[in-house]
């Protein structure tokens, strides 16, 4: 557990919850990122707020870099695993109607049985796949 970062995890997680809560309280919308982004691309309706939300997501690290100038983050190497994983995540969140934000945070908070089951399943499969492969 040498890389455990409890303080930034707690503050960062609270901000994630706060942003999602704000969208719900003011606009009545669920902050499910896969649903918002895929509807923005593939549904003709309600594009305005979805675009604004996704722009907010994308400029986040740039804004954070202004607050914390030494901020830098690591990404992933280009390769087949990235292509396969991207497809699986797209198909899975599309068919399963949600991801870590929509099911894992908003849905579990509402005690939705669909979201609780989905979150247990994707966490469990994620742990099994990562532990076997890495």
């Amino acid at each position, binding site marked *: 557990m040498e890389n455990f*970062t409890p303080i930034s995890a707690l503050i960062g997680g609270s901000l994630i919850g706060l942003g999602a809560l704000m969208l719900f309280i003011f606009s009545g919308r669920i902050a499910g990122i896969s649903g918002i982004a895929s509807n923005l691309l593939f549904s003709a309706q309600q594009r305005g707020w979805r675009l604004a939300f996704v722009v907010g997501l994308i400029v986040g690290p740039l804004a954070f870099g202004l607050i914390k100038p030494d901020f830098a983050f690591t990404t992933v190497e280009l390769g087949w695993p990235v292509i396969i994983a991207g497809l699986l995540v797209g198909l899975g969140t599309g068919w399963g109607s949600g991801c870590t934000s929509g099911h894992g945070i908003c849905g579990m908070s509402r005690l939705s049985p669909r979201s609780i089951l989905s979150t247990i399943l994707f966490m469990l499969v994620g742990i099994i796949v990562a532990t076997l492969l890495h």
Partner: protein
Amino acid sequence: MPLLIAFIAGLVMSIGMSYSQMIEPSKVLAFLTLNKNWDPSLLLVMVSALLTYSIGYWLFVAKKKPIMADKFYLPQKRAIDKPLVIGAILFGAGWGLVGYCPGPALVAISSGSSGTLTFVAAMIAGWFISRQLPIKA
């Protein structure tokens, strides 16, 4: 105003993901990979996000109406069905393979990393295919 609210909501979530390092696949995999140097940080991210959202949700849901919209748009589906289960399993497999879920992958676009951009393109292709070929419930 709804546009500004949506923008700030996305921005705050994104800063939260950046600060907690959840936009870094290696940090996420350090939680999902149990057999070496297990890092429980992601668990605390989930717990604090859940607590914050739950408290606000249950205090506010009694009010019946959002501040700036005519109603709450809650998901109508109730059934535990095949698309939900198959989808969650495939999503978990992709997440465990690389360490990106949709939010962090989109947030990391601004890095310009070819790996991240390719992941996002493949994810968008996956969303498109899932709409063209829906699974029967």
